[in-house]
């Protein structure tokens, strides 16, 4: 492998990202520009941007790696990440857009009208955001190592710096364009090489199929506790998507609730095209790069395949292309996460001391630095599994908050708070233990590695029970809020006076001529 090609690829993606970001710099003016691009983004660009932001290191590298290592059961990761958008579509997309909330804490505040619940939601956004960021930085480290032989921390630092430059300079407007571009880059970067590999494999007379006939790899549900683990994974991915901070903030960029639905279907289409590809890399990896399983380096399979299957200058070109796609994945997901975490931190924790834009920049820097530190000390779980754990926390907290908040009038502030604390506390305890390499035997061990099937029903139960016990404390503007969430926008009805920029705790006025 020639390091030059890989270095050039990474530099090109980085430069393109920063250039498009700089283009956005000229139009970012106010706080709402930073958070949500002022809703001036077209539907195609918006759907591509959502796809680009969502397809992270876990999708680009991790899925293929897990399929190489574990086989059929891992097919549920990409299926679940796509189905999560369908669940989001049917329960959350239009009402969330109609709520007018920028962030999940905004939604919590609007619906249950309590600052305590809002703060709990803010803490959870930061927690989920950081859990999701760590594997992105980790993926960047292993990619740069595979491309150039540099130590793992170099890639993590590069991604952190580029994301910060981009986010701090332009905010959401610039990353919307960056991410729309990165979806297509990621798709082409996977599609082109795999087409060649399949032709080459076919031309060689389809060798290596013997390695695919291993029962515990090719057949699902062969390991211990397999049924529990599979359903827990399904629950986490199907229900977790709606609770991811960087996904939710995107809905504000749609014109109205109807557009939010249509954009979500477009996203389903884009994800469906993309997720056909990573499993093919996993299967070909089984044939050409089986030694990665033995070395525990399965997350690199996407990057290793070109040199194993083709080699020569064409192989180098494909390695560089895949490296570029992988870097696009880290940069786009990390940017989205840093923006949404920084939005929440600056709004709820820093806004009484600094003005909007300065608080946002400070919070972004803080988020990236903390994540970088955690990446260097975490135990290096498989990238896709680490990301899925962030989904488990989201499914155990924001999923019940959104579903009950939108569809059940009975949700009260104390009930919501109790559910967030119970579901969030237990799931994040399990997830943190797993991320730092704690493991246990038997059923307890299975629950630790995939907590969702236990913590999601628990969180729902606590929220419902808590709300029933505090029935007298229904929010004052509940009826207007329900009208706001469900009535189409063109009807002139009283939807209450909620506006995210005005309701925040001691929020300052918009900065006038900043940036």
């Amino acid at each position: 492998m020639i390091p030059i090609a890989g270095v050039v690829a990474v530099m090109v993606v980085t430069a393109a990202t920063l250039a498009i970001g700089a283009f956005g710099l000229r139009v970012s003016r106010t706080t709402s520009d930073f958070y949500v691009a002022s809703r001036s983004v077209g539907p195609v660009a918006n759907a591509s941007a959502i796809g680009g932001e969502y397809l992270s290191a876990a999708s680009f590298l991790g899925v293929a790696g897990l399929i190489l290592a574990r086989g059929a059961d891992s097919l549920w990761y990409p299926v679940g990440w796509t189905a999560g958008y369908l669940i989001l579509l049917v329960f959350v997309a239009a009402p969330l857009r109609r709520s007018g909330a920028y962030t999940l804490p905004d939604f919590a505040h609007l619906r249950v009208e309590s600052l305590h619940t809002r703060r709990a939601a803010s803490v959870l956004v930061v927690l989920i955001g950081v859990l999701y960021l760590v594997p992105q930085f980790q993926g960047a480290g292993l990619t740069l190592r595979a491309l150039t032989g540099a130590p793992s921390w170099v890639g993590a630092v590069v991604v952190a710096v580029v994301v910060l430059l981009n986010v701090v300079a332009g905010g959401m407007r610039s990353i919307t364009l960056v991410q729309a571009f990165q979806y297509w880059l990621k798709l082409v970067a996977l599609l082109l090489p795999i087409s060649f590999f399949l032709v080459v494999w076919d031309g060689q007379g389809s060798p290596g199929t013997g390695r695919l006939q291993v029962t515990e790899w090719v057949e699902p549900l062969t390991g211990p506790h397999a049924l529990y683990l599979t359903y827990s994974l399904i629950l986490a991915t199907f229900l977790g998507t709606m609770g991811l901070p960087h996904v939710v903030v995107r809905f504000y960029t749609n014109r109205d609730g109807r557009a939010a639905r249509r954009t979500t279907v477009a996203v389903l289409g884009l994800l469906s095209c993309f997720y056909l590809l990573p499993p093919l890399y996993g299967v070909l990896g089984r044939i050409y790069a089986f030694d990665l399983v033995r070395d525990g380096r399965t997350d690199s399979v996407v990057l290793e395949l070109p040199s194993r299957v083709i080699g020569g200058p064409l192989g180098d070109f494909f390695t560089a292309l895949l490296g570029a796609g992988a870097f696009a994945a880290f940069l786009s997901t990390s940017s989205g996460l840093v923006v949404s975490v920084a939005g929440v931190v600056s709004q709820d924790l820093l806004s009484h001391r600094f003005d909007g834009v300065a608080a946002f920049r400070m919070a972004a820097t803080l988020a990236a630095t903390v994540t970088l530190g955690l990446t260097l000390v975490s135990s290096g779980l498989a990238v896709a599994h680490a990301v899925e754990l962030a989904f488990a926390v989201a499914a155990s907290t924001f999923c019940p908050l959104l579903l009950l908040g939108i569809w059940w009038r009975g949700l009260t502030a104390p009930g919501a708070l109790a559910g967030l604390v119970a579901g969030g506390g237990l799931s994040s305890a399990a997830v943190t233990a797993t991320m730092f390499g704690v493991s246990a035997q038997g059923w307890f061990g299975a629950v630790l590695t995939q907590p969702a099937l236990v913590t999601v029903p628990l969180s729902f139960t606590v929220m419902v029970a808590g709300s029933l016990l505090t029935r007298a404390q229904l929010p004052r503007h509940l009826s207007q809020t329900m009208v706001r969430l469900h009535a189409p926008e063109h009807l002139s009805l009283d939807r209450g006076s909620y506006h995210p920029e005005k309701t925040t705790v001691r929020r300052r006025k918009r900065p006038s001529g900043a940036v």
Partner: protein
Amino acid sequence: MSHGAAPPRRERVTGPRRAAGRSRRMSVPSEIDARTPLGEVYMQSLVRSQLRLAVGVVLLLACTLGALPLLFWLFPALTRLHVLGIPLPWFLLGFVAYPFLLVVGRFYVRRAERNERAFTDLVDPQ
């Protein structure tokens, strides 16, 4: 001349009807805004129809995609079937699942927009 003829006509036509209309009923939007029992019924009908649709979609998903692990676990022979040379679980989860999700999504959007049109016709018939 016409000035002299107009006032009596105005009295006869608009006066009594306006009073009767007011006492009989308010417009649907103001029923909703004033949170009258009737207004709440209108809102609930919208929320219920959308919730029924959403729950229907989730049940469909649970009985198809969601039932696969249970089926494979109860009937392991299924996992050894092949379609186009590909083992059944790989075929279903690697290829069929995606177009299926997309079709269900499109179906949902059509039905959800239809529910909203019905609500709009009820609330604001113009």
